């Protein structure tokens, strides 16, 4: 661990969405009050300059919402985000403007994240203009440079998104993010919509750019294989909370949280001699409106005990080099999925 100040610091971040019902002040009618979904539930993490961290989890775990909250694209109800030491709040326009000049996001659907009416060259040029990154007569040259940087021919600048393939559009998205010369990039499932062979190209591009420009990369994904390949650290989320966080090689080689274990066991291996792993989890994730008491994972956990169902939610505790949110210090599991 370097002693350098972290580039991004998230502390106890909370994001809640209202899901139906009315909240009348002073009135408490049971069954009619507003119900809330805790999409992000007191999440803390930090990212050092030039570091890659993966956020993994299944649908509904809050990883996308976390990414958007970091960039101030959704309202937060608690906690704080600090970028390069300065606090960032969605209500505070100046802090947001500062953040948006140094951090950018790449989205999942390459076509939907580009304005269908704009030439891709124009989409990138607009960013340069708004942020004053190039003199007006130098814009075209810079656009060409950015396109080449992501492996596209500058001749494509006149094309519209629907005239390009998914992989090419995703490269445009990356070029647009790079136009602001960011120190942090948040990639929200940015290879999920691509074919495997194209995915490999984009991953290679991201790795190379990240290394060359010392970018910090927060890589949100449900694909464990990709995260393992790309990220130095990984955080596993479940129902709005981080349940395990640590160095990727540690977490993947010897996961400690029961959910992480189940997740890793469920990923089908390209090994024809390995049978489908036996069921590790019961049931499915509960509705986020109806979270279980105590540890949110306990109804599905093979190791659940009485304490897990009671009031206290386990906090992240340090166990070796990993931090795990579990009441128990479960011994690390080996690759074969057996408890030693």
């Amino acid at each position, binding site marked *: 661990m370097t002693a350098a100040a972290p580039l991004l610091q998230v502390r106890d971040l909370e994001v809640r969405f209202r899901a139906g019902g009315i909240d009348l002040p002073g009135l408490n009618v049971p069954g009619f009050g507003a119900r809330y979904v805790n999409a992000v539930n007191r999440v803390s993490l930090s990212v050092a300059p030039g570091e890659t961290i993966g956020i993994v989890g299944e649908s509904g775990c809050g990883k996308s919402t976390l990414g958007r909250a970091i960039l101030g694209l959704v309202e937060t109800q608690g906690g704080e985000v600090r970028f390069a030491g300065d606090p960032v709040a969605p209500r505070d326009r100046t802090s947001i403007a500062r953040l948006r000049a140094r951090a950018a996001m790449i989205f999942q659907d390459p076509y939907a994240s580009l304005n269908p009416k704009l030439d891709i060259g124009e989409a990138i040029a607009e960013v340069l203009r708004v942020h004053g990154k190039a003199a007006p007569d130098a814009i075209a040259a810079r656009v060409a440079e950015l396109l080449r940087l992501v492996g596209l021919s500058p001749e494509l600048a006149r094309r519209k998104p629907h005239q390009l393939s998914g992989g090419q559009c995703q490269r445009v998205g990356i070029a647009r993010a790079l136009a602001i010369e960011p120190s942090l990039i948040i990639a929200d499932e940015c290879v999920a919509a691509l074919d495997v*062979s194209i995915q*490999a*190209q984009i991953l290679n591009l991201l790795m190379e750019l990240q290394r060359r420009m010392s970018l910090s990369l927060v890589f949100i994904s449900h694909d464990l294989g990709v995260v393992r390949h790309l990220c130095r650290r990984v955080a596993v989320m479940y129902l709005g909370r981080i349940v395990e966080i640590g160095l990727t090689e540690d977490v993947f080689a010897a996961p400690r949280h029961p959910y992480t274990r189940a*997740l890793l066991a469920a990923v089908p291996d390209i090994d024809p001699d390995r049978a489908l792993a036996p069921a590790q989890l019961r049931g499915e994730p509960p509705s986020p409106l109806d979270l279980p008491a105590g540890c949110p994972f306990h109804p599905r956990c093979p190791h659940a005990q009485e304490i897990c169902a009671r009031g206290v939610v386990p906090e992240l505790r340090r166990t070796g080099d990993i931090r795990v949110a579990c009441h128990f210090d479960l011994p690390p599991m080996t690759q074969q999925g057996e408890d030693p």
Partner: protein
Amino acid sequence: MSLLAVRDLAIAAGRHLLVEDIDLDLSEGEVLGLVGESGSGKTITCRALMRLLPEGQLRITRGSVALNGRDLVPLSEAAMRKVRGVEVGMIFQNPNSHLDPVMRIGDQIAESVRYHEGASRADARKRAIDLLRQVGIPDPAGRISAFPHEFSGGMRQRAMIAVALACRPRLLIADEPTTALDVTVQAQVLRLLLDLRDRLGLAIILVTHNLGVVAQTCDSLAVMYAGRVMERGPKRDLLRAPAHPYTEALLKCQPGSAAPAAQLPAIPGQPPLAGVFPEGCRFHPRCPRAAGICRERPALLPAGGKRLVACHFAAPPRAA
């Protein structure tokens, strides 16, 4: 006995051939993986097997699809309706859009039984409860009156499997059934499919782009690219020692195959679009082994054991 034998199948849209020279074989109780990226034609091929191609847009121009020895291609629509749901069933990628949202689950299962077998309401209801139990939905008697939106994603996929199997077909075509599911739910559904195969002797064609899924569930696989089958055979042979350069490249560009943070050996370029397929071997513009002869189309030929490969250089299979 061969359950399904597809020979020389070709599908066209207008003047353009989208899918050509498809040869597939499936025995009872076998799971065949149909692997390919977008544009490979795997979904169109599956639709064609059930004669579900959109009328007026796509049509079968050549070939035969022999199910239990009977060719389905020349059958009339009325005759096909007796085949669909009865001899072959299909499940789809998105359970949300493939279940009727305003009809109860039990009714959707029962509908198939009553339509094809003329069963009474009571019998159909019993079969529905039984099927829900077989696909692992808890409290089946209570759940048959539920609507699809009351189920979670994984449950909906199981319900869709129940609907597809209502009239006990011997063949199930699963078109990317787990692609839209979380990985833990995917594991459950795949296990269910294998379970049904063991219990009912069901043969399955599993369409997917995920090689891990194929490795864990299939007996044999067929790799498609740009509308053609590039390689076909037992899964162990293809995954351990791929003979076709595309299969090999596909395996190599998976994130797990290289050391962490190393550059992945990606396939350059992108898959061609229908209507502008390359001359000769469709993979040759992206192939590391391409040579002049690749401008001639390679036929799908046997290459040792039960494997078939469409490549001029296939003779000695190389270890992955």
